[in-house]
């Protein structure tokens, strides 16, 4: 049956191909949100000049122009650079960023007649771990990008980055164990499904409601892992000029640049799935939506909800960036090891004790 092939193609070829494209297109939007948001926060106007045939669109053309500019710029390679690793590093930071989004569900399983299309590229039974595993590989791009050009500022950026990533990965991993205990699964879609329940009959059982401390810790760790302000020490322009991407230009720089924004989107999608109910529309479970307008509308609404939540978090990232200054290095380390780690451990402890005290088991 040709429709079988169509469904198979959709799941196994279209989703894995389309999602990176969507993410990279999202980068354009993210850059626009960042620049215009920054401008409006600082009482400025932001980019508003670039246009195509007078079509300015509030500066939305600017990121496209930037991308084109980066593509045609001169490729610069420092004389003493390690050529192979210099080429490899941007790719190594880009690939994990795109891969991690593959396990994040952006809608409930779409049931069309006898076909069930999961709105997710891969429904792994170890989805949460997959994200952690692949995301932990992203640091190599930064580290090698710092080492390979043989520049002292770059190497400082690379060193800072590796130390920072390791420190915050621990708090990050520990902070979601509470969520895993509460939802009793590591499959992302299960976790999202369970967040459709209601607590006390009215409160959505979102991760942020049952695990507020876990959410806070995870959010801070996610900021650190994506090298966002206030944790952007690897690229601190004031001290180490631009850190690991100092010697990069043209397309290779834009790879690092895009990887940062894709990482932000992955982090947002992950936080949404774990703590903000994923594609769940509060008080409107899938069955209700399907009954109301049919499965396609239901799926569209859920995907829309997921996208909305994701972009809300992206906005929070931007908002924080233009509010806070950068941490000092010792503050970063002391926050990671002396505040976040004990808090994460305490959170796990309390989360495991509470069900026994309340007599849930």
């Amino acid at each position: 049956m040709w429709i079988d092939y169509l469904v198979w193609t959709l799941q196994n070829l279209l989703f894995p191909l389309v999602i990176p494209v969507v993410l990279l297109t999202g980068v354009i939007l993210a850059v626009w949100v960042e620049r215009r948001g920054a401008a409006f926060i600082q009482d400025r106007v932001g980019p508003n000049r670039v246009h195509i045939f007078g079509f300015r669109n509030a500066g939305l053309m600017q990121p496209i122009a930037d991308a084109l500019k980066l593509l045609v710029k001169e490729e610069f390679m420092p004389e003493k650079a390690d050529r192979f690793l210099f080429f490899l590093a941007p790719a190594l930071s880009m690939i994990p960023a795109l891969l991690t989004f593959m396990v994040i569900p952006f809608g409930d399983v779409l049931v069309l007649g006898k076909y069930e299309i999961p709105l997710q590229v891969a429904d792994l039974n170890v989805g949460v771990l997959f994200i952690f595993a692949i995301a932990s590989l992203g640091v190599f791009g930064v580290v090698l990008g710092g080492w390979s050009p043989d520049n002292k500022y770059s190497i400082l950026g690379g060193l800072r980055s590796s130390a920072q990533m390791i420190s915050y990965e621990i708090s990050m991993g520990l902070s979601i164990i509470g969520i895993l205990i509460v939802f009793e699964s590591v499959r992302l879609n299960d976790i999202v499904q369970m967040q459709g329940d209601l607590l006390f009959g009215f409160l959505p059982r979102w991760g942020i409601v049952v695990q507020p401390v876990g959410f806070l810790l995870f959010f801070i760790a996610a900021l650190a892992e994506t090298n966002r302000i206030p944790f952007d020490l690897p690229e601190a322009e004031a001290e180490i000029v631009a850190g690991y991407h100092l010697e990069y230009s043209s397309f290779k720089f834009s790879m690092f640049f895009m990887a940062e924004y894709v990482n932000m989107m992955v982090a947002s999608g992950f936080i949404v799935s774990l703590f903000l109910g994923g594609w769940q529309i509060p008080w409107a479970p899938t069955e209700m939506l399907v009954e109301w307008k049919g499965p396609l509308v239901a799926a569209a609404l859920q995907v829309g909800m997921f996208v909305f939540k994701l972009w809300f978090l992206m906005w929070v990232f931007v908002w924080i960036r233009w509010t806070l200054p950068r941490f000092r290095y010792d503050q970063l380390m002391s926050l990671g090891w002396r505040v976040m780690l004990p808090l994460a451990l305490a959170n796990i402890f309390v989360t495991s004790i509470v069900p026994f005290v309340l007599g849930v088991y």
Partner: protein
Amino acid sequence: MIKIKPVSPLEGKRYPLRERVYLIEILKGMGLTLKHLVRNLATYPTKNRTVVTIQYPEEKREYSPRFRGKHRLKKNPDGSMRCVACKLCVENCPSHCIFVEPDAYPDPSRGNYPKRYEIDITRCIFCGFCVEACPKDAIEMTEVSEMGDSVRAVFDRDFLLADGKEPAS
């Protein structure tokens, strides 16, 4: 003998707990940035905007009348140059960007005039010393600040003369 107790730099200056937790302070800061954002978004397309940006080529900043911009050589009411090529401006120029080549008028009673008067605008620091030094009040600085050009780096006599309004006196 007074014994001085060593004081650690932090002692007595600890921030209150509310500020040391930092999260509340972060939220306050984010509230402030949100306030600005909302205000700017609310007035976004309208004219009474709260943004401070000057949209440069269309809008221009009002300069003070004492602004030292591009130089201008003044003329006498009869149209002749005021400059007598005394080279005091050349002597006073701290960046040595003025070059004057004097020449005599055919009529000896009229004295000298500058055959060449050139200012290397790429070296000029716009200090205004040439204006101060001029005994004939022949050079002044206008409010023109846009001197960008892809060919002309040295402003010659005729360019300096031609530009701008007729002298007031």
